[in-house]
C-alpha cells in the first residue's frame, strides 16, 4: 500500500477538462515530481489532492483511506501539508508567528481557556513557539523571526511557507514551485532542504519548473500535458521519452539556452 495513491483523477472548468484521468503513487521518503508546460494542470492537480478543489472523477487515497474531496483541515490531521505557487503568507503576522500558526493542530484547545488566558493555553503556545524557532532555524530564517512576514524577500517567503508546512509534521508534503523566483544560491538551499526532509521519511510531491533541480532530486517523475499524464518514470527514462521532449523539455531547453 502506497502512502498516497491517485487514481483516474479529473476535473472540468466550464466544460474544459483541466485534468483528466491522472494517476500515480507516492511512497514514504520518496520525492515525486509533477512536471509539464504551463497550463498542463499541475497546480489544479495539487488543489484536488489537497482538498481545495472537488474532483469530478477519480480517487485520492492517503495511507489506505479514501480522502477524495476531504476538507483541507481534515487532510491536515491525516498528515498532508502543502505550500502554494502564489504565496499564501499570513500577512500582518511576524515570521515566527506564521510558523507558530502552522502548529495549529498541536496548540489549539478550548476557546474559553484562550479568552481567559488560562495556564493551559499559555503553556501550549509557549511549547509550540520553541518548536517554531527550531523550524525557522532549519530553513535559515531564525534571524528574521521578529520581522513582519510581508517584509521578507520572495525566496525567504518560499522557505517560510515550507517551514510552516513542516510544522504539521506531515507524512506527505506537497510543494508547488518552491524554487520559483529564487536565485541560484536560494535554489540550492531549497534543494538541500527538500532532500533532507525526504530523508527523514516524509514523502514529497513536487511541482517545479527548474528542470535541473527536478532531475537532480526526484526519484520519480510524472509528466502532464493538457491535463493528461503523458509519461512517468525515473528521471533518466522521462528525459529520454520523445513525447516529453516534444511537449516540455524541448521548450524548456530552448529557454534555457536563451538565458545562457
Amino acid at each position, binding site marked *: 500500500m502506497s502512502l498516497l495513491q491517485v487514481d483516474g483523477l479529473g476535473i472540468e472548468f466550464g466544460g474544459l477538462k483541466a485534468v483528466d484521468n491522472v494517476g500515480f503513487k507516492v511512497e514514504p521518503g520518496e520525492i515525486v515530481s509533477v512536471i509539464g508546460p504551463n497550463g498542463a494542470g499541475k497546480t489544479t492537480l495539487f488543489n484536488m489532492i*489537497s*482538498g*481545495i478543489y472537488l474532483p469530478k472523477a477519480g480517487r485520492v487515497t492517503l495511507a489506505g483511506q479514501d480522502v477524495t474531496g476531504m*476538507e*483541507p*483541515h481534515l*487532510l*491536515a*490531521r491525516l498528515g498532508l*501539508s*502543502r505550500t*502554494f505557487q502564489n504565496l*499564501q*503568507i*499570513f*500577512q*500582518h*503576522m511576524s515570521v515566527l*508567528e506564521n510558523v*507558530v*500558526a*502552522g502548529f*495549529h*493542530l498541536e*496548540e*489549539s*484547545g478550548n*476557546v474559553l481557556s*484562550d*479568552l*481567559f*488566558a488560562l495556564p493551559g*493555553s499559555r503553556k*501550549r*503556545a509557549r511549547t*509550540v513557539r520553541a518548536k517554531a524557532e527550531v523550524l525557522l532555524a532549519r530553513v535559515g530564517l531564525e534571524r528574521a523571526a521578529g520581522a513582519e512576514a510581508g517584509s521578507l524577500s520572495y525566496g525567504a517567503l518560499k522557505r517560510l511557507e515550507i517551514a*510552516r*508546512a513542516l*510544522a*504539521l509534521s506531515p507524512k506527505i508534503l506537497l510543494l508547488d514551485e518552491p524554487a520559483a523566483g529564487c536565485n541560484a544560491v536560494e535554489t540550492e538551499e531549497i534543494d538541500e532542504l527538500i532532500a533532507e526532509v525526504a530523508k527523514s521519511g516524509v514523502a514529497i510531491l513536487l511541482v517545479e519548473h527548474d528542470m535541473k533541480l527536478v532531475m537532480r532530486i526526484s526519484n520519480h517523475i510524472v509528466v502532464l500535458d493538457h491535463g493528461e499524464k503523458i509519461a512517468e518514470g525515473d528521471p533518466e527514462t522521462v528525459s529520454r521519452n520523445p513525447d516529453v521532449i516534444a511537449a516540455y523539455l524541448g521548450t524548456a531547453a530552448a529557454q534555457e539556452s536563451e538565458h545562457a
Partner: protein
Amino acid sequence: MKLGSKHTTLLVLAVIIIVAPFFFPSSYYFRVGSLIFINGLAVTGIVILTGYAGQVSLGHAGFAGIGAYACALAPVYLGVHPGLALIIGALLSGAIAFLVGRPILRLKGYYLGVASLGFGILVAMLLTNEAQITGGPDGIRVADLGIRGLLREMGFRVKGSELWYVLTGICLLIGAWLALNLHDSPTGRALRALHGSEVAARTVGVDVARLKLQAFVISAVFASVSGSLLALQNRFITPEVAGFLHSVEMVTMAVLGGVGSVLGAIFGAAILTTLPQVLTVFAEYEYAVLGLVMMLVMIFLRDGLLPSLAKLIKGREQ
C-alpha cells in the same frame, strides 16, 4: 509604544479611565464617558470579528438589541434580577449567533455583510412591531440595577452618572483584557491566520467555519453586554439600539480608530461618541460633518486614526 502589547494597552486604558474624571467640569462628562465605554465594549467585539478574523458584520446591533431588551423584559416576565438578565441576554445572543452564524458565515465579503444586515433588521423589526411585549417604537422602561441603592444602604452616596462611569469602565477593561488574551492565544492566531489567507489556514488544519463561528459568537456576546449596559444605565431603551444605523456605527467606530488593535478601536469609539456631542454646536451641519469625517479618515488614513497617528509619531522620532 507598541500598540499590540497587552499590558501597555490595559495600562493606558486604566490610566485614562482613572485620570479623565479629574478634568471633568460637570457630571455630564461622566455620562459621555460611560457612553464611550459602552460603545467601546461593543467595538472590542468588532475587533475580534473584523480585526482578527476579517469578517464584516452589518447586523451586530441586533445582538445589542437582544441584550438591551433582555434587561428590559426578563425582570418583568421572568422576575429575575436585572443583573441576571444581562447574563441571560448574553447567553441568548451567543446561542442565536451560533445558530445564525453557521449558515451566514459561509458567505464572504459583501454577501456576509448583507446577510448579517438582514438579521439585524429582523431583530429591530421584531422589537418595533411586537409592541404589546416590547413597548414598540416608543421604547420601554428598564428596571433599576439596584447598586446605587445598595451603596446608599451601606452608607455611600454616589451620583448615578459617576457610578455608571466606574461600572462601565470596569466592564470595558474586562472586555479589552479578554480580547487581548485572545489575540495572542492559539485561537486568536488561527483567526488572524484565516484573515491573512483562508486557504493556507485550512491547509495547516484550521477548521475555518468553526473558528469564524467562535469569533462571531464572542463578538455577539460583547455587543449584547454593551446593549444591556446601555439599557441599564439609561433605565430606558428603544428599538433603535438594534437598528441598521447602530450596526454601522459599531463597525465605523472600530474601523475609523483602527480595527487591528483594541486600543485603536476604542479610540474610534471615543471619537465617534463625542463627535455628535461636539457637533450639536453645528446643529444642522451635524450629519454632513459626520459623513465627511468618515470618508476622509477612510480615504487618507486607511489603517485607522490611532495606527496612523502612531506611525506619524514614530516617523518624527526617527
